[in-house]
């Protein structure tokens, strides 16, 4: 199932005052970052999108799918597969091998070529986490990073929902930039709650939450895009260092200093 865009129609903030932003469109292949201090209403916004079928949400927001209101009576239909979520709190709890479970999930989602698909899921998982696993591994034995990587890969290829909600995966030990690229590359609409500047600037736009309401929408400027590129370089370096340390290597002090200073001056 593919769609062009979703539209969030504004409701009220915590004091019952209409939100500043009364209409927010997000298109297929776009990433919207949701930012703001703790308690500003980020998770509620995500929850509202997830519950788009609901007639009344506490915030009074509503969600349009390709400019149409959601079909409220569509209990068994496709609409409940509209949104897939990946968050930091989620873990795999089923005592089953990755292979067995992915085949089962592929069957549930009527995937045409399940064997090939789960191979692809595996390779994305391994690319994202950097700690390779095999299909025979039990789900409950996956590390935090591997679990999150598998969740992204599964959402990208098997869940196949057009809208993906990502809730603070910055500390999850996966290549989150690549994760976003994989998801948007599949033509998905991605909403990402984040405090991480690299991730926020990678999004085409961001909504700033305040007192429970959508306060402001900013489109990423060309200048921010440049900064974003630098941040990604730093991020890559970070990942590289992590890899070196993890593999038991010593890091050449001089080499590091030289490279560091060329990357940082923008700040």
């Amino acid at each position, binding site marked *: 199932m593919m769609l062009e865009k979703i539209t969030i129609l504004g409701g009220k903030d915590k004091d019952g005052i209409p939100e500043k932003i009364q209409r927010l469109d997000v298109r297929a292949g776009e990433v919207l970052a949701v930012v703001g201090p703790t308690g500003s209403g980020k998770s509620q916004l995500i929850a509202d999108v997830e519950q788009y079928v*609901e*007639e009344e949400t506490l915030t009074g927001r509503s969600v349009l799918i390709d400019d149409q209101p959601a079909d409220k009576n569509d209990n068994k239909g496709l609409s409940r597969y509209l949104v897939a*979520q990946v968050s930091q709190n*989620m*873990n795999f*709890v*089923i005592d089953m091998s990755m292979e067995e479970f992915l085949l089962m999930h592929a069957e549930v989602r009527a995937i045409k070529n399940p064997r090939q698909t789960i191979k692809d899921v595996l390779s994305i998982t391994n690319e994202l986490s950097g700690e390779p696993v095999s299909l025979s591994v039990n789900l409950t034995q996956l590390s935090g990073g591997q679990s999150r990587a598998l969740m992204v890969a599964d959402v990208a290829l*098997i*869940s196949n929902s057009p809208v993906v909600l990502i809730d603070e995966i910055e500390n999850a030990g996966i290549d989150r930039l690549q994760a976003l690229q994989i998801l948007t590359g599949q033509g998905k609409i991605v909403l990402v709650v984040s405090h991480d500047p690299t991730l926020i600037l990678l999004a085409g736009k961001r909504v700033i939450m305040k007192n429970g309401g959508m306060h402001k929408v900013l489109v990423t400027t060309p200048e921010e895009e440049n900064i974003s590129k630098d941040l990604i370089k730093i991020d890559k370096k970070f990942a590289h260092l992590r890899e070196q340390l993890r593999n038991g290597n010593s890091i050449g002090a001089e080499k590091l200093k030289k490279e560091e200073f060329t990357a940082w001056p923008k700040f």
Partner: protein
Amino acid sequence: MRFVIVAGTPSSGKTSVMIHTIRHLLKDDLAVAVCKIDCLQTSDDERYGRLGIPVAIGLSDYICPDHFYVANLEEIENWARKQEADLLVLETAGLCHRCAPAVYGCLSICVIDNLIGIDTPKKVGPMLDTADIVVITKGDIVSQAEREVFRYKVAEVNPLARVMDINGLTGQGALSLKNEILKSHDLNEIAGKELKYPMPAAICSYCAGETIIGKSYQMGNVKKVDFGGTE
């Protein structure tokens, strides 16, 4: 008065889900009364009590809690009518996977959580497949993939039920349940209504307090394991 029966496996989130749902109902100015059935002990009465609504508890003690539940439905109904409730919520103990408390004419809700394992929907059989509404909780802590597979397994057991995801901690999704409850019909009288699924028989010597093991201590309705006749 609407009569809502809430069943489900132990600790699945029955009380958490109903507290959020009742909050929404109270906002609509409905008078709600709650009764909780359990075996030996419960603190659910305290939790419901904080909503400022009438709460009763029934502890079955030495009797099967589900038999105790059926035997008391009329009395519980009368109690709730005396409280002038528009809506009675009856939360069962949910200990026995064989018992299904659903009654024709009442709205039956079965609450199960994503953590119980994907084979469990089959095991809870009658409790799940006689429900009008199935609520699935604890989706916040398992992967999207598991939620989807679990939901599918639930739909296999009960294809007719309306299935909804509710987060018992935040109450996300409880508004849909409120709306479903509002759609349900009033019940004139529970006496004369019928259980959707018969309770298991339990009239043996152990029901009557016997504690010693062995054939000679057993009387009444006793069933033995069938080992396949290879003796």
